């Protein structure tokens, strides 16, 4: 019996230095619990502080927005992000920022493709549409090619609708030049919405569609 056990023990591989002998001692268990707590605690907190804001997100087509960031209802995670990244969010009564990182079908936006953005936006006193590349500098203003439009500049058709072409190569009508390569994102800013309630009920708002027209390799 004794001989058999010795044979069995010699057949298992030598345990790594960081694994305790089984059963583990109380000291090892305490150390293990503390390490686990530190890794889980700091790791998850840092994970949550990546942008954009983790909670309170609303959707409307390809657009996402956070209606409570600019109010006193800001949640603790958004508060930590605003503080840590030294942001100055738009106030509730000023306007709203909407972000699109995909087209209307949910595919990521690539600078090598051609998109159209249109065709109407519900009521706001002014709005702006700006394209940002993911590289640096984020706001590409190369060769004076425009990367943004305001509601005052846009060319509209007889019905008051508009279309903006997003592509690297020049297009007729309203055109925003895309960055040289990589992904990009679009920010729509609505200034002075009729009432503050409207920004919460923005799900019914008409916001522009982003449509993929084709890609060049």
């Amino acid at each position: 019996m004794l001989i058999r056990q010795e044979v069995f023990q010699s057949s298992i591989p030598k345990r790594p230095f960081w694994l305790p002998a089984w059963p583990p001692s109380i000291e090892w268990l305490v150390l293990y619990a503390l390490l686990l707590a530190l890794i889980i605690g700091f790791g998850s907190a840092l994970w949550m502080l990546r942008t954009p804001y983790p909670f309170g997100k609303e959707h409307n087509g390809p657009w996402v927005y956070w209606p409570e960031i600019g109010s006193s209802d800001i949640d603790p995670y958004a508060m930590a992000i605003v503080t840590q990244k030294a942001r100055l969010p738009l106030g509730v009564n000023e306007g709203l920022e909407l972000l699109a990182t995909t087209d209307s079908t949910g595919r990521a936006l690539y600078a090598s493709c051609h998109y159209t953005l249109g065709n109407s936006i519900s009521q706001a006193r002014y709005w702006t549409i700006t394209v940002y590349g993911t590289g640096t500098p984020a706001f590409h203003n190369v060769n004076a090619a425009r990367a943004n439009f305001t509601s005052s500049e846009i060319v509209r058709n007889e019905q008051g609708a508009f279309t903006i072409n997003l592509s690297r190569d020049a297009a007729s009508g309203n055109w925003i030049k895309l960055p040289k390569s990589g992904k990009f994102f679009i920010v729509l800013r609505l200034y002075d919405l009729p009432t503050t309630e409207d920004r919460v009920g923005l799900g019914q708002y008409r916001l522009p569609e982003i449509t993929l027209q084709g890609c060049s390799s």
Partner: protein
Amino acid sequence: MRARYRFLLATLAGLILGAIIHIVIILTIPAFTDRDVYGLLEHTSHDDAPDFISMPESGSGLPWMAHADPAVNLAVCVYDLRKGPYLLSVSGETAFQSVSFHAQKGNVYFAVTDQAQVHGRNEFIIATDNQMAQLVQSGDYDSYYSHTIKVFSPTTKGVIVLRSFTPYPSAKQLSENSAALAECHRLTAQDQLRSQSPELEETIPQDLLPPRRGGI
């Protein structure tokens, strides 16, 4: 079996403690960060002439400025109420102008657009609850500042942001002028004087004033 039970108990304890650490970190970040918006902009404020500073699109010390709206001129005024309340005056000659009031950590506690203008101006008194109560009790508020909007700052320090919209690139100068003409300073006896005799406004050189609306 008993050893396995202990190990599971230690894991559970670690997870619970981890959750507590997570909550503590998130809730205390605002208190422990000194690179918040106030900390980064504090150097722009001078006691003699604290006023609006137009932020350049990059290199302003605020990393996110690279993602700011290029059609908006953003100007900031950093305030510290320990030596007294502040007076803010915005003329709103651009197409659209809005003011947001941020507490020291950057969160918005009040915001208003140029729709709230009286006689083409938006004027505000920024004070703590106690300072405002003093202003009202002493009668100064009713005598001199009744045309201003009362803004109660939740913190003694904070940042005011003035956004001037530029509908066309050619209107850029207008929104820059408008930001340059906005006033943001500690309340002085001169402000009382001026609110009594508006003709003092006439002493501002005319070429400093932005062109009338409709001139775009």
